[in-house]
């Protein structure tokens, strides 16, 4: 069931009414939400319900096993085995076909032709996200950050809660589970914020992301050698905007829907395309996934050792490389991850050197403290110029790396760059409308980050009928100018 469909609207309305009718009984409400979440997931393919339930049951049992074990060594083994099992299932679904193809190629090359066990494995939607939630739960229990859940309903609902089940945000158990036992609250502001987030998400997905994909990005990436340089330049910017709008739209709708049901989720995107450094970009892009990678992958690589020197650069690089590989077994994703890993490492190195140079300079100077005091602070114009240059470099690194991310194979990406930098041909697909979509979406990133909250604060006292006109009118306008039918979200494939 996709968010921007009448099916979801009817489903959500029914769940909303039922959830608030059962407000007084926490257990009945949880059971209803669990049933609704399984219905939501099973609507795609009921066969994968067993996988979702199996994953939840396994993590529930592993959490209890961790709680009942005293020895540190054994606890570590339980945690490591459970995490490996989670990742093993994810890997099986994501990489089985790749391994079989590679093995077939290898045996053919060695002249040992064998019939490999062929299985057409379909990737269950949202498997990455509910696996990541399961892993975060187990590691947090192991680290002692949270207590293991005693009620299976709570854990099953945590893993499967429908607003964020398919494409995040990745909610942490420590943040979600306490909300289950509290009586849910819905403030005037939360109602309006929820509706505005849903409207914003629908606009980004069904208008901006759709038209950029259908009219520019998809045709250009399908045959880059036939496109003009102007269209290729526009499409590489367009793709970055499309992915942002598509991915953040899902998070917006998920956070808005959860808010209307009385749950608070943290912001997942915070104007990443206005970031002035790669570090800042990753602190603002799918925040729940970036922090997941930091807390469970980067920290696991780092271990107990101090994070400095070459180890730090290696760990940053490996985290981004594995982050890239998670998207799929393809060299394009590996290179995308490597570009970001090298970029982040280089940025840290330059910042470290610059800081060392600035702090060491006064000590070398004979005037000492006086020289330190006299050290010029950058004027607003210089600071603005530096921020502008930082944005320019960061934005272009992101959009250029996205060409690898979008291309089906490496050769196609190289063809794309070769044709783009030939600087031949004018706009054929790029129209003023598409240009306005890209420029507008980037410009909006430079506005205040809490625009929706401020608007919600202004509209918090609107009467119900006016709120309904705002919601219905907005959705109707989006539906009218949007496409016929809805394409799945980009991140469903991961």
């Amino acid at each position, binding site marked *: 069931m996709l968010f921007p469909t*009448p099916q979801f*609207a009817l489903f959500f*309305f029914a769940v*909303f*009414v039922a959830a*608030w009718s059962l*407000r007084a009984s926490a257990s009945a409400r949880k059971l209803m939400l669990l049933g609704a979440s399984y219905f939501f997931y099973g609507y795609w393919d009921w066969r994968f319900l067993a996988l979702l339930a199996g994953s939840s049951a396994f993590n529930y049992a592993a959490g209890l096993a961790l709680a009942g074990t005293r020895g540190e060594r054994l606890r570590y083994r339980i945690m490591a085995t459970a995490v490996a099992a989670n990742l093993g299932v994810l890997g099986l679904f994501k990489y089985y076909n790749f391994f079989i193809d590679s093995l077939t190629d290898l045996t053919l090359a060695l002249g040992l032709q064998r019939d490999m066990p062929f299985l057409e494995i379909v990737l269950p939607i949202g498997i990455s996200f509910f696996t990541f939630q399961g892993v975060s739960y187990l590691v947090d229990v192991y680290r002692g950050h949270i207590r293991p859940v005693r009620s299976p309903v709570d854990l099953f609902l945590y893993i499967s809660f429908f607003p964020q089940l398919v494409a995040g945000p990745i909610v942490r158990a420590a943040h979600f589970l306490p909300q289950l036992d509290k*009586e*849910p*609250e*819905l*403030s*005037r502001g*939360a*109602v309006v914020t*929820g*509706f505005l987030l849903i409207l914003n998400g629908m606009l980004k997905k069904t208008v901006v992301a759709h*038209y950029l994909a259908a009219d520019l990005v998809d045709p250009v990436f399908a045959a880059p050698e036939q496109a003009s340089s102007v269209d290729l330049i526009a499409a590489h910017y367009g793709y970055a905007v499309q992915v942002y709008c598509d991915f953040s739209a899902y998070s917006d709708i998920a956070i808005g829907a959860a808010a*209307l049901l*009385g749950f608070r989720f943290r912001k997942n995107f915070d104007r990443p395309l206005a970031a002035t450094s790669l570090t800042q970009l990753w602190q603002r892009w799918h925040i729940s996934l970036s922090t997941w990678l930091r807390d469970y992958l980067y920290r696991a690589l780092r271990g107990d050792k101090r994070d400095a020197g070459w180890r730090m650069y290696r760990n940053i690089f490996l985290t981004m490389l594995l982050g890239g590989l998670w998207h799929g077994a393809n060299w394009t994703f590996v290179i995308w991850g490597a570009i970001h890993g090298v970029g982040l490492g280089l940025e840290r190195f330059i910042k470290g050197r610059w800081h060392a140079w600035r702090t060491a300079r006064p000590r070398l100077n004979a005037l000492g403290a006086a020289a330190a005091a006299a050290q010029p602070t950058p004027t607003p114009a210089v600071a603005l110029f530096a921020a502008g240059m930082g944005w320019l470099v960061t934005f272009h690194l992101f959009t250029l790396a996205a060409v690898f991310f979008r291309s089906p194979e490496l050769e196609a990406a190289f063809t794309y760059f070769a044709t783009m930098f030939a600087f031949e041909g*004018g*706009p054929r697909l*790029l*129209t*003023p*409308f598409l240009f306005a979509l890209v420029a507008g979406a980037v410009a909006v990133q430079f506005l205040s980050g809490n625009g929706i909250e401020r608007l919600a604060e*202004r*509209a918090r*006292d*609107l*009467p*119900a*009928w*006016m*709120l*309904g*006109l*705002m*919601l*219905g*009118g907005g*959705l*109707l*306008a989006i*539906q*009218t*100018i949007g496409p016929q039918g809805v394409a799945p979200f980009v991140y469903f494939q991961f």
Partner: protein
Amino acid sequence: MVDETLAYPERKKSFWQRRSRSLQPAPAQAREAGTDDSAVQARRAAVAMLVAFALFALFDSRGIRAFVRDLPGNAVTDTLVTAADGWHTLMQRLGPAALAPAVRERFDRWREVKW
């Protein structure tokens, strides 16, 4: 020293700043009435969603007809299809059904403008 805040009469609040004349009681009143604000807000949100559905029924009868026709066929959906067809015909006759295609046509013309 003059208290400057008293020197200015209270300015008339703008539309967006004015408190609505919502039928729902304000939080304090709601608590006094034996209910709480979350329940009031849930009802407010439910009413808003129903108004939104009503707007869609009025102005997107074509979409409703398409949605109902896609449902799996049985006696209930046959009745729904007949009702949706009748509703769409009525909306066409009264006018609301013509609004969305007209807006769409203008939007498409603007969307296809070349340099």
